[in-house]
């Protein structure tokens, strides 16, 4: 079984960090994981259009829009996709919480992030 995850962030080192953390989850998850990366809302939408994602983890504050736009777009296409938001200020997006399965508070620590990924992929 293969799970496909999309990670969206405009900060390169965070994108790299998330990819590495997911990679290390893969080692003890018992299934293979494919990770795609995007840095903008536009790129993310293109990838969502072209692929089925089990999980999308998106930064909320992107150069050309917000993570909520990606969430709406992905849910319109496939309601089964799990979506997590990554933000420093979760309280700012309280009204948009309904579009997300989880809010991860930034900055992220590997141990906490990995645990959250496992939970979302299981659910």
């Amino acid at each position, binding site marked *: 079984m293969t799970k496909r995850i999309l990670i969206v962030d405009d*900060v390169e*080192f965070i994108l790299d*960090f998330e990819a*590495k953390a997911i990679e*290390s989850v893969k080692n003890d998850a018992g299934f293979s994981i494919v990770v795609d990366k995007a840095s903008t809302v536009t790129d993310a939408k293109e990838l969502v259009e072209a692929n089925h994602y089990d999980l999308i983890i998106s930064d909320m504050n992107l150069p050309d829009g917000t993570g909520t736009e990606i969430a709406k777009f992905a849910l319109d296409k496939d309601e089964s996709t799990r979506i997590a938001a990554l933000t420093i200020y979760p309280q700012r997006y309280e009204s948009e919480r309904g579009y997300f399965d989880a809010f991860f508070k*930034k*900055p992220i*620590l590997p*141990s906490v992030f990995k645990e959250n990924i496992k939970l979302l992929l299981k659910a």
Partner: protein
Amino acid sequence: MSNNTEDILNILHVLDTGAVLVEDDLSISWTNKYFDQHYFSDQKNLTDLCRDLKPVEDDNAFLHILEDVKSKKEYADTIIECHLSDNEAVLCDVWIYPMSGERLLLVCQLQTQNKTAHCEALLQMARYDPATTLPNRIYFLEMLEEKLTQQQHPEALLSIMIIDFNELDTYDTVFSITSDELLLLTLKERLTDVSKEHTLFARVAPSKFAIVCETAVTPVKVEKLAQEILHLFYEPISVEGHLVYAELSVGISLYPTDANNAKNLLLKAEKTASAIQKTELNSYGFAHKLPEKNVDKILKISTDLPAAVENEEIFFVFQPQYCLDEGRFCGAELLARWEHPELGFISPEIFIPLAEQTGMIRTVTMKAFMEASKMFKALEGRGIKDFSLSVNISPNMLLYSGFMEDLEFFIESYEMADKPLYLEVTENDFARNFSKMIDALNAIRDMGIKIEMDDYGTGYTSLQYLSKLPIDTLKIDRSFVQDIDSDQQQAVLFKAICDMASALGYDIVAEGVETEAENLVVQQYKNVRVQGYYYSKPLQVNELFELLEKAVVL
């Protein structure tokens, strides 16, 4: 004896009136100095004493009153006829207080004495802190107000210094009550040494002492006194086998600059001490240098910290290290810097302690690991080998349960397993949670990471401990290098530390080499790595590469 009773007896001991503590079986377990000098000296129990302390009205009345106080636990007083040591019979007022454990406290006042000892005793209790017998907050304010009204020259300077011990209350949970008392008394004793030249010394809150300086006060002198106070606590306090490292801050307010009444002067000094405590422990500051805005600034810094890491406002510079035996730059220490878009450069001395308090230090450290990994790759790309990188670690990180997992993740995912990576832990950190720290450091070394003991020589590591610590490198504090060329004692100490470190098999780094003269001395030690402005200031990545590519031989 209960804690409370002991406190009261401490106060009564110095009073100009007789006081006696009577046990349940009517034996006398304690008498104060005045009683010993003026009353009888050979009574072994109260029955004997009663032969001489005859109630005026009824022979048995006195004993009945005592029994009454014991059973009802209510205070009583009476008049007795009493024989003094010269056998003279005089009337004596006696106040009888019930104490814990069926004991009684008798305060005796000869009617020939003018003042009312009873009132005096109560006044003492209201004005003094029982544990330290120092004036308490109320009395301190009263005395300070009196001093201010006596100030003849309105421009005369007077300073109030608050010595605020961090988390002193929590020692209660660690120590027994007796140890807690001893700790307080030791704090008082150390402070008494510096405060004796000054007029007021008080305990104004459970963890706060106050000193007032009023003669020939200049800000420089006050500053010197603050430094002296901090210096007093560099060494740990030994309390019943425990070593306590006191963390303190000193807040100073000046009269009339900061306020013109006692209450506000005290409050300003206290506020300054607690503001300092939030940013830097074991430091001091003046109230007038801490405008209200500063508090807002600190709040803003705390709020902006999480975003600062992500926005790369917090970045790292590299302090190069030079290997004397190889004649080349062979490593660098990563130092965090913060360029805030509105506030400008924020000193690490401010934001690192805040990051520690808010838990953000974990993220800052993670970022340091990422930078180290990026740097190792860049060095490899340029063909530079055997170049070590050191990352500073806060002791809180080591004790945080997820840290080992996070570190493991970085080592594996960022391919640092075979890289010369060092974690720097300051010497003083070892003193806290010693066994947990040792376990954590052993686990880190098992991952192939080396440990450097930072600021060696400023802490309290005993030589016995030093040989047992799981470390690879001793980093000798800059204070041992400063003026090493002109100060013979410094040179001797430096040599002794180097010899000892070599004998124990540790590598050595000398910090703070700033002048050519200092370098000439340090250069004699070929096995030492050196860092400091003489070799290079902290550099940005591109500057570091420029330095390395020049292949400087110094």
